[in-house]
């Protein structure tokens, strides 16, 4: 993010500023309009189970893409080439298909509001609370990261003070997230995705034209940088060794992200039918297929057209913005950055709110809240999570690379949580006690691997393997739940029900 300092506010034209203010005002008003739809906690947390597949699909990708994807993606493409796209292809598409066919039907039919709630039904309430604590703590930290990243861009691009930038972003996102709940989040995400794609497409067109046309661009790339056109890099590569990409990213990190991420899954739980939930993820996968073209291309533009080698690869996108884009287009890209960040903040806030309200406080409190009180509590928790995110935001400055920081945080718990979900769905024999101990020991094992300095891709893989082994080992000596308790929670019961209907 430091490299965004390459933007300077003196470069900003009135067209760019006009675009930014029009976007901020428009998205606030549009999101706030959804307030009238919220009457119950189900409306607030799950959009009243009314969302169509195409809105959810757009919202999923809007939530998934952040400014780190733009800056880090272009920088990665500049540095390593096509291998960067693994995060969008092999590191996403198979997992999204598995999420659509295997996970979403279970979550949707179980009638849960969150993934920890599913874990609570499948295993036990302690598993639910521990998972919710981890995921909501991560959500608050991530909100802080996103707010800081947005503020940094506003500061460097417009010259606004960091604190003011954080408060403006938090105010805009907070207003529509608190008032309109998941519906506001999902529909604004969809608008934000259109802006992001529009910005990226315009950049791609301008860049290809500057390179002398599509044919010239491809020929030059092939002749001058043939090593940048490989998706897989040698197993000795520092950043993306192919075994790590296949085993860590393809088999563990990616399914763990796409199948267990509360911010991603929550909009699927708000689908109007189970088919809409499944189709939404497939639609998102289609959009995801094209994301590398939009975020990797700027890295290639800088590679071909920058007169001298850029010292820091993450300067690739700022270089393109500064040197290739005319006024108006650079403003559109900047608005796309802000939209990408805001969609991630709003989704994360909403998911943190549901987990704290229902999976932590709802379980700890002996007396269940009535619906109106739960709705009030959900809104208060959203405000509290936003406030905590604002307080956490400056911590981000302590870390050098935001993208790596986020991935490292994820790799600490994704392996064990994914193991619990996958094995819990596939095997009826896995027991509640095995779930609890595998989660705790798997987290401890991941922490040990992290302290030992293992690459995060391998860390996720081995903590997953460890948790699976513990699940089966402990289940062999403990008692499973009965068939009636597992109804609609395991693979065989759900598939059988669909066939019987």
């Amino acid at each position, binding site marked *: 993010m430091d490299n965004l300092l390459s933007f300077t506010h003196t470069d900003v034209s009135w067209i760019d500023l006009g675009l930014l203010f029009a976007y901020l005002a428009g998205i606030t008003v549009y999101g706030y309009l959804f307030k009238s739809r919220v009457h119950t906690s189900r409306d607030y947390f799950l959009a009243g189970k009314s969302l169509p597949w195409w809105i959810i699909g757009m919202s999923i990708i809007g939530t998934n893409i952040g400014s780190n994807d733009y800056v880090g993606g272009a920088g990665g493409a500049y540095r390593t080439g*096509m291998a960067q796209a693994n995060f969008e*292809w*092999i590191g996403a*598409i*198979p997992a999204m*298909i*598995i999420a*659509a*066919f295997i996970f979403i*039907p279970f979550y949707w039919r179980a009638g849960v509001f969150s993934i920890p709630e599913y874990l609570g039904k499948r295993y036990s309430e302690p598993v639910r609370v521990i998972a919710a604590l981890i995921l909501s703590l991560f959500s608050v930290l991530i909100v802080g990261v996103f707010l800081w990243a947005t503020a940094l861009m506003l500061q460097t691009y417009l010259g606004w003070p960091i604190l003011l930038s954080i408060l403006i972003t938090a105010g805009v996102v907070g207003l529509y997230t608190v008032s309109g709940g998941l519906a506001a989040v999902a529909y604004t995400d969809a608008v934000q995705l259109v802006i992001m794609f529009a910005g990226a497409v315009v950049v791609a067109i301008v860049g290809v034209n500057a390179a002398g046309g599509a044919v010239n661009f491809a020929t030059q790339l092939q002749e001058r940088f043939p090593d940048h*056109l*490989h*998706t*897989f890099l*040698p*197993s*000795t590569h520092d950043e993306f*060794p*192919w*075994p*790590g*990409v*296949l085993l860590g990213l*393809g*088999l563990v990190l990616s399914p763990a992200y796409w199948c267990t991420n509360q911010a991603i899954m929550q909009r699927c739980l708000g689908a109007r*039918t*189970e*088919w*809409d*939930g*499944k*189709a939404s993820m*497939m639609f998102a*996968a*289609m959009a995801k*297929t094209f994301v590398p073209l939009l975020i990797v291309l700027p890295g290639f533009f800088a590679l071909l057209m920058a007169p001298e080698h850029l010292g820091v690869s993450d300067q690739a996108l700022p270089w393109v913005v500064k040197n290739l884009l005319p006024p108006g287009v650079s403003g559109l890209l900047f608005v796309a950055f802000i939209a990408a960040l805001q969609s991630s903040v709003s989704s994360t806030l909403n998911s943190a709110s549901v987990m704290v309200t229902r999976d932590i406080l709802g379980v700890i409190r002996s007396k269940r809240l009535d619906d109106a009180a739960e709705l009030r509590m959900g809104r208060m928790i959203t405000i509290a999570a936003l406030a905590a995110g604002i307080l956490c935001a400056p911590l981000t400055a302590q870390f050098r690379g935001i993208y790596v920081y986020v991935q490292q945080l994820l790799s600490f718990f994704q392996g064990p949580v994914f193991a619990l979900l996958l094995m819990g769905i596939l095997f009826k024999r896995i027991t509640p006690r095995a779930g609890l101990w595998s989660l705790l020991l798997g987290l401890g094992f991941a922490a040990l691997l992290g302290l030992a300095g293992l690459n995060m891709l*391998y860390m996720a893989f081995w903590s997953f393997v460890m948790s699976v082994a513990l699940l089966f080992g402990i289940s062999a000596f403990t008692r499973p739940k009965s068939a009636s308790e597992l109804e609609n929670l395991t693979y065989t019961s*759900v*598939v059988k029900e*669909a*066939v019987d*209907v």
Partner: protein
Amino acid sequence: MSDWIHALPLWTAKVGAILLFAGVLAMVWSLPKDFVYFGAPDRGRWRDLRVWATVLLAVQCGIYYVF
């Protein structure tokens, strides 16, 4: 990672990727049709999500075969 993995040629990665896609495709087509359509308002061919998955995975196979 073990030394034997480092000794494998780079094309092993491509084979691994394509096997992964094929495995996911096989899983998708092994699912009952009723399960795939469950909740759909009608049984239009375009609502068969297995076809969507096939298109997606075919594109992935193409990408990883070329690059």
